[in-house]
């Protein structure tokens, strides 16, 4: 009898939790729809993702096909964005570049996010020598301007997508580590963490199940604005000629190519820039919307 009772109580508790979870999901969805910034941002990035995944649907031209009869044509009905000095169709080059640019932007943000969050958790939770070591490395990285450090690393490994990504991973994690560390230092002294310690939970469990969910939101908000910085920086490095190498289409590299004949063919630099701005704008809106959302949820 007792066992049956507890089984009934267990199922009802489970269904209650399920319902609560559903409610939270629906509430979150409604909140997302209410935030105009978030919706517009998601639509822009959604369109970019579709372009990145199925570029061949939107253009019939091969991005690397050199057409000697169509050199530096201005935008027209056949070539919507015009052509470059090798007669390649610019619209298809810009569309095909979307995949690479989004990939570089997201991975240049995500890897440092993961590394920085882990190191910040360890540093803030354990303190002592580990903390001192990690924070001194952060201090030293802080004294280098972002671009200078990236350029130095690329100078050592050599230009290309791989070294561009490695440089950005090595440089960018410090901000996440600092942010998470300071949050952990506040949370770790709260009563529920003390309680978890008294109950004999392992450090791993306390860190991952009790502290991480409470400190992650600020890093997530930062990540949404950081992705814009990463996209601009990686496009900037490619613009300087030390990132993505030609003939691979990439927005920054396309703008750089257009710079050489700016007065004769403005469209070569103009259109890749518009796409770069649009995706940056989309991610900025998502970041703004997310921080509003988390603020409302927090309240």
């Amino acid at each position, binding site marked *: 009898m007792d066992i049956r009772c507890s089984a009934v109580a267990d199922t009802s508790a489970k269904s209650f939790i399920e319902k609560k979870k559903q409610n939270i999901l629906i509430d979150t969805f409604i909140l997302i729809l209410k935030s105009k910034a978030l919706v517009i941002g998601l639509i822009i990035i959604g369109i970019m993702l579709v372009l990145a995944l199925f570029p061949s649907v939107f253009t019939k031209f091969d991005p690397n096909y050199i057409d000697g009869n169509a050199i530096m044509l201005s935008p027209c009905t056949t070539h919507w964005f015009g052509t470059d000095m090798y007669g390649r169709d610019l619209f298809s080059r810009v569309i095909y570049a979307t995949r690479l640019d989004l990939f570089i932007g997201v991975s240049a943000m995500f890897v440092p996010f993961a590394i920085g969050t882990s190191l910040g958790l360890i540093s803030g939770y354990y303190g002592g020598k580990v903390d001192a070591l990690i924070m001194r490395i952060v201090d030293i990285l802080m*004294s280098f301007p972002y*671009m200078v450090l990236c*350029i130095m690393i690329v100078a*050592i490994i050599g230009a290309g997508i791989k070294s561009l990504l490695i440089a950005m991973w090595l440089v960018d994690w410090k901000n996440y580590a600092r942010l998470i560390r300071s949050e952990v230092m506040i949370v770790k002294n709260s009563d529920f963490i003390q309680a978890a310690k008294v109950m004999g939970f392992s450090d791993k469990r306390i860190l991952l199940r009790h502290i991480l969910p409470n400190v992650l939101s600020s890093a997530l908000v930062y990540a949404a604005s950081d992705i814009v910085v990463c996209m*601009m920086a990686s*496009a900037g490095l490619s613009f300087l000629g030390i990132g993505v190498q030609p003939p691979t289409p990439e927005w920054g590299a396309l703008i750089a190519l257009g*710079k050489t004949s700016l*007065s004769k063919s403005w469209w070569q630099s103009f259109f890749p*820039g518009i796409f770069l701005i649009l995706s940056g704008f989309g*991610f900025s809106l998502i970041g703004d919307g997310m921080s509003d959302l988390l603020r409302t949820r927090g309240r």
Partner: protein
Amino acid sequence: MNRLSYIIRRLIQMIPVFFIVTVLVFVLIRCIPGDPALTMLGDRATHEMIEAYRQKIGYYDPLWLQYFIFLKDLLHFDLGSSLRYSEPVINLILERLPVTIGLTVSVVFFTVVIGFPLGFMAGKKRNKLPDYIIRIYSLFGLSAPQFWVGLMLLLMFGVKIKLFPVSNWGDTLPEHIMALILPGITQALGIMAVIIRNLRNNVVDISGTSYVTFARSKGLSEGRIDLRYIFRNALLPTTTILSLWIASLLGGCIIIETVFNLPGLGALMINSVLSRDYSVIQGGVLIFVITVLIINLITDIIYSMLDPRVTLN
């Protein structure tokens, strides 16, 4: 603690950071694949020539001794000589430093002249049309790549309207100033986005404080309240942010100098990376780091001067 002893203490604290940075730069530059003697002398060099050069630069010395010599030279402001220009690196850097400093001054000037009034206006006209327009701009400013904005400004005001010189640094001071206007505005447009947002929020917060209400109830004119009570206090955190941004400005100048073909430190760095001129990269990185360390120190001191609540302890 008085200001002088604070500055001295901060300078002493900078020494270990500086040493670690020199170790890092020294090690990283030596990680670069390739033989420095071969790079310097070219493919036609005979075996004897290469050996002689290696002896001269201390190629066979232990690494700690090489570092020690590097440090000794550094303290004598000897950063080695450039492979590409065959000139001492320190001369190359000193030649180009004024351009980069000029660019930074130009950026700060335009940020203050355009950004401060706009941020103040957005805060005063909160949730009205000017506020919305200024806020949308600040979102756009953050997501627009500066090298693209620079090129478009160059196309409009340099190529089409011919108001400013295109890729021409000039020889006289007025020519230099003309050449620095567009690059300055370009970089300022990006930083302004941050400044405007920050200043707007400060103005909104301060307008709601009780001392502003009190000033109004005393019958002070709106102009006086705006200037002496709101603007002055709102400016404080914004100034700190502006000075923090100057450090990243120095990194950003690499791109801007390339866009506008300015003969500055950033352009020198990027050309050295492309032509594998390692001693220049090494010297350039060190100069950048030292400048950032000094700017951070100055920021702390200025902040303590602006806000009497900040103590130097």
